[in-house]
């Protein structure tokens, strides 16, 4: 009896462990099965490289949204990476212990704040601000880039800080003993040694930025056209799905799912890159 129970529970544990595999498999299958026929029907080329999205005329080109996602993500990185990395350096090498006890929980909190709140903040504060400064409609690519730049800060800070702290103290001591200043030792010996960890953090940030949906929708304007500069509205892949899924029918609906497939493929590639870099760090 006892033996039976042992074996039974072991099977239960095993099945639980298999659930995550099953989940990934199911997600892949359902997205691809529902998305790929649409891509085939529209034509892979005209779907991914088509510049016009006009469902009423059966024109489904998502190139402008792919570009939109890339531009918004790149802008977010341009803002988030330097500030995040330098903040991580501050936390690891400059921050007094007492201050650290206040800042660290705040950054953890920053990671936990829901994206709707970021979006709402962007809508109420940043959109009017951009409007005032540049004299254009405030729902712009720039607004989305800044907001996303703020949102990826905690991801980059946490990963970068951990990897900077993992660099042996000897590196720093050696540099200081040779007469380098504190800053020079940190920037020219410790940070380069933490390079691959920092890269991993940045890639994680890319994943967050490209997949972010709600906050972007609330500030980016979402016009379905090619991106026309940072002071014009832009629509990303994620925004396209949420904006139109509510009322889409037939091929339109399938094209939206196919948009999700393209996004999913992007994310899988980013994940792959992340795990390759992470593996390198361990070795």
């Amino acid at each position, binding site marked *: 009896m006892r033996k039976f129970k*042992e074996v039974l529970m072991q099977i*239960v*544990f*095993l099945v*639980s*462990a298999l*659930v*995550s*595999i099953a*989940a*990934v498999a*199911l*997600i892949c299958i*359902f*997205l691809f099965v529902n998305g790929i026929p649409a891509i085939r029907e529209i034509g892979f080329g005209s779907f991914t490289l088509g510049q016009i999205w006009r469902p009423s005329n059966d024109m489904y080109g998502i190139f402008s949204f792919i570009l939109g996602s890339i531009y918004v993500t790149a802008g977010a990185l341009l803002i988030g990476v*330097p*500030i995040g990395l*330098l*903040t991580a*350096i*501050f936390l690891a090498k400059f921050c007094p212990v007492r201050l650290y006890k206040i*800042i660290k*929980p705040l950054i*953890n*909190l920053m990671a*936990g*704040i*829901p*994206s*709707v*709140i*970021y979006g709402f*903040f962007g809508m*109420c*504060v940043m959109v009017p601000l951009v409007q005032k400064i540049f004299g254009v409609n405030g729902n712009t690519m720039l607004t989305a880039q800044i907001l996303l730049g703020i949102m990826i*800060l905690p991801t980059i800070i946490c990963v970068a800080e951990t990897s900077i702290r993992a660099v042996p103290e000897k590196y720093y001591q050696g540099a200081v003993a040779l007469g380098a*200043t*504190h*800053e*020079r030792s940190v920037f020219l010996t410790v940070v380069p040694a933490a390079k691959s960890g920092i890269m991993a953090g940045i890639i994680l940030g890319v*994943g*967050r930025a*490209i*997949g972010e*949906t*709600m906050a972007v929708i*609330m500030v980016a304007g979402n016009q379905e056209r090619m991106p026309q500069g940072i002071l014009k509205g832009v629509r990303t892949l*994620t925004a396209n*799905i*949420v904006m139109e*899924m*509510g009322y889409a029918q037939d091929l339109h609906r399938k094209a939206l*799912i196919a948009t*999700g497939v393209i*996004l*999913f493929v992007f*994310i*899988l590639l*980013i*994940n792959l890159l992340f795990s390759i870099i992470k593996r390198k760090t361990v070795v």
Partner: protein
Amino acid sequence: MVKKDTKAYMETINRRKFADKWAEYKKRPGSFIAMLIVYLSAALTMLAIGFLLVYVLVKGIPNLSADLFRWKYTSDNCSLLPALINTILMTLLSLLIAAPIGIFAAVYLVEYAKTKNKLIAVVRVTAETLTGIPSIVYGLFGMLFFTNALGFKLSLLSGAFTLAIMVLPVIMRTTEEALLAVPKSYREGSFGLGAGKLRTVFKVVLPSAVPGILSGLILATGRIVGETAALIYTAGSVAEVAKNIFSSTRTLSVHMYLLSKEGFHTNQAYATAVVLLVLVVLINFVSDKIAKKCTSEKG
């Protein structure tokens, strides 16, 4: 005694006054600039989060009114209470699904599987993949699978299953860490007293890992409470308290999104943001406290 003296001596040597630092910076302006931008960046980060918190609180708290906590939602009072109750229901249901699976999976990985097992590697990779998938993709999948294929319709149940998959890797990872932190001697002691593997797991290993597991569950709660994109097309947006698990519901985050999208009820949106924010801060705080407690006990 000698050692202590050396240490104190070293400290006096290493202690530098502000004037010393200043002299050094004067000689090396590059370092001075580096120091400045480091401080500036940290200040910017703090400014961003501080401004967001203060702004939402200042704008929102005066708008908190009894109207927002009416039992029934109407387009006049914009009551958030039904959404709040739905959020709690959604959280409970999701955790009910995800917690046993996540914890059991971690038990398998730590206690049963052999270290060089191919299967473990695959489970790890898939769990990592799940962590990286954005919530809108979960939303699409939930819509295709739970809502349509399984016929759950737009419902509490569809939403809960979708979120359960989303938080599964969080629960798995934290539980795994908690189990790994349980000393080997506990297990050896239990085996030595004649307990079987299963009994050891349930009576010895899991109980001593409870704080770690709990902090993981609370972390998962935070993600569930803050989720919007995965729920819009799985749980729907009916602003009433769910009658059963098959009724469409909106959680607080979805409510917040719809309210700000409509744009008519900005004041109520501010107030809703405060409630949501306070909820998330509270959840974070509790999770942090529990996690700290278990590390300090171990250390």
